[in-house]
């Protein structure tokens, strides 16, 4: 998401709508695009496996970054929004991590995000709802591809408080953010031309807003975890450039019935275990984490079966780590496991300044 932010830096927020408290989500309308906000993304991650038990992880993200709400040039090629898309497939057994990306403009309908229904596309990569309300995502790059159908599963979980997920000290530095936390998934994953029929569970995030981070915010660590007891946990921790934890870090716990509990910064801790991985880009990522949510009695340990899941984009020239993780720990003393996705950004250089509006 950092990349998106960096894309947005070139433009003023003046004409864009800011995320404000009191937003009421309506579905499926809110799956569709919100072009009045500057930044918007649709984020799918999932842990799936073949019938033989071979495990894969995938990530498909569609970004829309507003550039100029009303370009003076009447050309269809005038850049109102930039569209970016990332595709990554993790194959721990084959030790393969493959990714692809797209960075395009809308042009005459080459990329876009519909407002009347859920349909976002970046050239031939698409995500949309089919007539049964299922999410259909198709993205094929040279070395990785997904063609998946996802049921919504639990109702959308609204993150934050009062329809708003605060990211910075200023009022506007926030987003509207909901998640589909456990989506039964079925389809095909392709790695280096090899096709695998898979099924499993996915997680979708949809977030839109206009300004997010502030100058001192260095990056973040984000986790989406599907616990074996039927609950899901989302946590993100904003890191400040002085090395401290930002008070706007937060999380959401989703119950088995879909009810949500907002976790403020003080309600949890998220700490590296000390296990690190130095990626080809030069960034060093803490790839093991411990989570404690004292109020819920949760003590969890996050690890990954695959160290190198760094995604390095040519278009934006930015690297981040995004990959499948395993989970083990206890809930009020009861052992539980789980799977999920971990995203770590801002480990390469200081992005705080760049992101500032």
């Amino acid at each position, binding site marked *: 998401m950092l990349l998106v932010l960096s894309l947005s830096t070139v433009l003023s927020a003046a004409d864009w709508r800011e995320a404000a408290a009191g937003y009421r989500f309506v579905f499926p309308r809110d799956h569709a695009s919100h072009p009045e906000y500057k930044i918007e993304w649709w984020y799918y991650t999932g842990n799936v496996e073949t019938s033989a038990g071979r495990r894969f992880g995938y990530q498909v993200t569609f970004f829309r970054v507003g550039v100029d709400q009303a370009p003076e040039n009447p050309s269809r090629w005038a850049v109102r929004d930039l569209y970016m898309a990332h595709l990554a497939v993790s194959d721990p057994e084959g030790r393969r991590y493959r990714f692809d990306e797209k960075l395009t403009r809308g042009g005459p309908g*080459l990329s876009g995000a519909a407002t009347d229904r859920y349909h976002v596309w970046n050239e031939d990569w698409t995500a949309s709802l089919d007539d049964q309300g299922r999410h259909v995502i198709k993205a094929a790059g040279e070395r990785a591809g997904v063609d998946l159908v996802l049921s919504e599963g639990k109702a959308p979980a609204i993150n934050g408080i009062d329809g708003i997920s605060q990211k910075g000290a200023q009022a506007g530095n926030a987003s509207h953010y909901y998640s589909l936390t456990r989506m039964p998934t079925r389809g095909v994953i392709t790695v280096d031309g090899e096709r695998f029929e898979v099924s499993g569970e996915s997680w979708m995030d949809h977030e839109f807003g206009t300004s997010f981070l502030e100058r001192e915010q260095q990056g973040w660590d984000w986790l989406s975890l599907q616990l074996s007891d039927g609950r899901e946990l989302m946590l993100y921790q904003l890191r400040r450039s002085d090395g401290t934890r930002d008070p706007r870090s937060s999380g959401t716990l989703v119950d088995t019935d879909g009810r949500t509990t907002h976790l403020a910064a003080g309600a949890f801790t998220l700490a590296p275990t000390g296990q690190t991985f130095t990626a080809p880009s030069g960034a060093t990522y803490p790839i093991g984490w411990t989570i404690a949510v004292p109020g819920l009695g949760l003590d969890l340990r996050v690890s990954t079966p695959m160290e190198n899941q760094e995604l390095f984009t040519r278009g934006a020239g930015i690297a981040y780590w995004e990959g499948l993780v395993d989970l083990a720990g206890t809930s009020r003393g009861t052992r539980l496991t789980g799977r999920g996705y971990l995203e770590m950004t801002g480990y390469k250089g200081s992005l705080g300044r760049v992101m500032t509006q």
Partner: protein
Amino acid sequence: MQSRLFNQFILRRMAQERTRTLTTVVGIALGIAVVLAIQLTNASSVRGFETALTSVAGRTSIEIVGTGGIDETRLPDLGWLRAFGGMSPVIEGEMAIVGSGPDTPQQGSSTPSTRTERGFRAPRTEAVKVLGVDILQDLTLRDYALGEVQGGSTPAGSKPEGSMPEGSKPEGSQHEGSLTSQQFLELLTSPRAIVITEKLARRRGYALGDELQLMAGDRVSTFVVRGLLKDEGPAKVVDGSFVLMDIAAAQLAFDRLGRVDRLDVQLRGDGRAADEAAATAPGSAEIDAALAAISARLPAGLTAQRPSRRGEQVERMLAAFHLNLTALSWVALVVGLFLVYNTVTISVIARREEIGMLRALGVTRRQVLGLFLGEAAVLGLAGTLLGIGLGRVLADAAVGLTRSTVSTLYIATAASTPALAGWHIVLAFAIGLPLSLVAASLPSLEASRVPPTAAMRGSDRLESRVRLRAAVLVAPAMVLLAALALAQLGPVDGRPLFGYAASFATIIGASLLVPAFIFLLARSLAGPLRRLLGVEGLLAHANLAAAIPRLSISVAALAVSLSMMVAVAVMIGSFRDTVAYWVGQTLQADLFIGPGLQPTVGSEQTLSAPVIEAVEAHPGVEAVDSFRNIDLVYNGNLVVLGAGNFDLVLSHGSLLFKAPADGREALRRAIGTESVVVSEAFANKYGTRPGDTLTLQTPQGPRPFAVVAVYYDYAVDRGVIVMDRGTFRRYFGDLTPTGLAAYLKPGFEPERVRAEVLASLDEGHRAFIYTNRDLRAEVLRIFDSTFAITYALEIVAIVVAMLGVGATLLTLVLERQRDLSMLRLIGAARRQVQRVIVIEAALIGAASQAIGLVVGLALSVLLVYVINVQSFGWTIQFRVPVTFLAQVSIAVIVATAVAGIYPARRATRLVVERDE
């Protein structure tokens, strides 16, 4: 032994006869130089286009094109092309930089009168190639090496931000030393942002952040330099005259909203890794396979081709023009070779005794042959070497002379003379050496037949008087008959090869007739010369009559070049009269309005709404016709497809119809139907007649159109198809016009209306408005400049021929030194002897010009009725420019007389035999 003999017998003599050797070498050199210069010139126009094509094409293997461009809304349906590799939509064109640099005050406030001056030709403007791309897509196809760039982009209405400090890249960037595609895009997002080359910036003194004004069509807009490109990829286009902008900005600037010019596709090597550095260029077979696969799937109206196809089309379009220049350039060479023949012949005749002596001493025939061929080889070698150097110089001049023609009539090209390539040098030697040897073979053979007894014969230097035998007329008669037969044959692949062969045969036949002609001339002129010119006339005639065989060569050479000039003069004169008549008949409108920048192939220029409105709004304007021209590929060739308002043509305008008889009625019936009229050049080239059906590539695919009439047009030799605006719109869309013709109400002065319309335009719009009279003058001016190169080539050939005359006279003078001394001894004054020689020279000129006139008229018939028709397809009314020919004739006689001055000076040296 042989080399020593060669050294003593040939080289020493050549050194002694410096003047003759030098003239011959210079003659060959000029011939070679002209041929090379024309090769280079021809290459410069096509190569200019092709190198631009290649540097812009980058890694493009295949391009998708459509007539009039591609409707951009079709692009999403072409997503399947991505399976083949990267693709990028492109807008490409030409703009002119207006004003000399950022420091000069803007010219926008210029008065209407200065605006109508040919601003785009003025030294302060410079044409640049403009490429509009979506940089996000384009980086897979083309390499742009950005040097300096300006800081963060500032879209309209927002305050500048310091988010990206100037000259530095964001710290998040992972790329060392280069911008990410996203940052590159940021540079270009504004519709006024451009990136130019460092070369251009240096040349015109632009710095980052400077504003510069570019004119496209009739619009002048201000752009800001946001970045500088190093000399790589497309930036290498002709001398760095390259401007990169965003595709949206380019669409706006060129007024091509809604369409792109083409879609460039880069083929991905099969199974290649995503890391592109490792990707190798696809092979030819791979491209062919992909072309077939893509063509099979492309929707109607779109064509897939290699980028080089456009170069081939331009090459074909220019082929006739180039072939004519090449043919002309060979005249100078042929004349130069006459000189070799001449020189070696003289050398052989003058040295019969010595040859006889050598033979008596035991030198074989083959050795004698070798000696004289060796002389030719030395001359040819020296001439070629000199010619190569000279060719480069002449090429610059020739490029200068043809540049405006090529850019006016064919393609926009910042023509600079290409460097001499290795193959040019090989070509020069391949032409110069063998042809010199061929030219020398006859006299050398003759030398080898000189018997040893010739050594004893004493002073038989001068031949005795010549007798005319009927037998010598057989060969020329047969050659001339062959010429007649060749003239009846049709073109080969659109080239009048048999026409050229007929011309060549005519020249050869006429040359063979020269001795007989001079003989008759000499016989009939003896009396008159003596009466008119007294004793000098008597002597001059006597001298010439004695040297007919040798003189024939010089006269033939001169006559050949003169005949070419006469022929070309007659052809051009006829052509000019025809065009003048046609212009008078067809140009009926009172005002003609065009964009400030002239459109050419690959550089479409259009008129914009404000200009059209300004014209229509003027109270004096009664009716306005608008034209729209686009390039159309027909039978693999580029032709012009034009759209006009047939109603208006019928009510106000005038076309000269060739067929059918009632062209106006045909035009009336064409309105609203799938009908076209075609130009005569088109009809000739493709054998089209009224009633035929043409299948044209429309954006909807191939569609049939009925040809209802053929009209005369002398403006476009590649052929024009015209349809009614309504029909055009149905198939090709409502494209903005490329020109307007305005008819005024009675009582309105065109000059005033023009001034008023121009005054009503704002600073951002520049139209060229010609009054009817101005345009007629302009048409003829363009016509004349087109033929400037032709005359230049003629003059070189004539200069070479004059050198030949001078050299021949000099030789005769040297040979007759004893006679001339004797004349001086018996009392001839220096001036009398000089006058004799000058009269001889003038007589040679007169004889040559007489032959040149006759042969030239014959050649002009070939040019007008065979070569022109076959290569350009124009009907030209034959007309003889009598005054011009009379002037030329006098000039030629004076010039040859002048060529006799140096030999005349040499002739007065008194040589007395000394006591040994």
